[in-house]
């Protein structure tokens, strides 16, 4: 039983999208903490 092309592309695409969102999210968190004076 092998993984199909569509399942593989879905798995990798979702993983890539989440990974792409991660740095954006971290920068947003950083700015929010910085503005609120809660970075450290």
């Amino acid at each position, binding site marked *: 039983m092998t993984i199909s092309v569509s399942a593989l592309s879905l798995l990798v695409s979702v993983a890539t999208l989440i990974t792409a969102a991660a740095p954006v999210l971290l920068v947003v968190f950083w700015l929010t903490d910085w503005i609120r004076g809660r970075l*450290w």
Partner: protein
Amino acid sequence: MNSVQNASLNADTGWLILAAFSVIWIALGGYLGRRTTGLEGYMLAGRKVGLALGTATAMATWVTSNTTMAAPQLALQMGVWGMLGYSLGAVGLMLFAPLARRIHALMPSGFTSGDFIRLRYGKTTWRVFLGISLFYGLGWLVSMGMAGGVLVHALTGIDYRIGMTVILAVCVLYTVLGGLRAVIGTDFLQTLIILVGILALAWLAIINVGFEHMHAAALEQRPELLNLLFPAAIMFLFNNLLFGVGEIFHSNVWWSRAFAFREGVGFRAYLIAGVLWMPIPVVAGFIALTVPALDLNIPAADMVGPMVAAKLLGTSGAILVFIVVFAALASSLDSLLAATSDLILTDIYKGHIRPHADETELASVARWVVLSLGVVAWLLCLPRITTLAELLYFTGAFVASTIWPIAAGLFWKNTNPAGATVAMVAGTAIGLIGYFLIGFYVAALISAAASMAIVLFSTWWRPREFDWRILANSQQVYT
């Protein structure tokens, strides 16, 4: 040109990158640590770390050179399950989220995981736990140091000893200068570098090779990579999950962050870090599936990441991989140095040698402990004993035995010290028997199961009520 040659940079370029990033990390660490005062400031970054830095440091520390290099290797060896199994390491981070909240609530003035075990279970359990934790911490530190030297050599041709020495010295220097504040601050930047680098590689693989071509070539040349019924890989998946949970639950790397995070941050930071970390091994690992389509001949499975990068991007690919690997190595090495030093300072120096040492004395000794630990790690890395890295597989049995004593000790007031001690000792022993009789992929599984059975039975058989208020005063004298 041959892709193996392409995967390596020339030594001059390697030195340039090494020097540039060494200066950045040391300068940033020194800058961030310039206002660090007192023991709490140095060991726990003042206990006010916010969500952004908290999430990034949890992610960066869990992304080791293993994630960036071994995820593609596992995908090449175990196919789809290899990368999925690796990504389940995120479960440990997510499960630690409620523990971090509980730890912060029960021990607002705690310093180390050793503090908890000592106050919750007493000295015998504490010493058994310290043995496990220091063995694991030093083992991981040395394996990371050796990985640094090996990777620098493989990617640039720079001598193993020189590469290892530079990477270790840089991490020791900025950790000595700025303590946990420097570690967490640099982790933020390192996380961004790692994420962008891995994304760039994955994106190039998708654009240049495409899923259809990748799938068809793999199906023709290496069909096992796409096989969903791969028994050894499925066992690896569950073992890796428990290994990860054990590593995170017991290690002071994660406890020190739970103490350092601002109130209300621990739960969210660990949960978000777990969710964001989970896809990284899939993204880093899937590029190995392009090997058949790219018609690459891989002489050593652990070089598959750099070789695919070099094939897709040429020298730029090799530079990108080198920068990502350096960031991943530094983000884990600095955390291990800081957390293991905290354990040595608080639980060995104060706990066993100078029980009446005050905060001023401990604050001044702290930097010397980091430096000494760096020197010891360097000495152990020098001979490049590759079997030492394999020793880390052993630690699966050790760390998995601590999962239940820690989780039950945090949430159940009736779990007793004898049960916790026996669970750690017997769980480790039975896990090691499984390691030798069956294989590395069952050691953590068997150890955790045995430890769980002992904790559950001993709690039911001999319940002993614990007063949670004892944990609130973790600064009590050790004698």
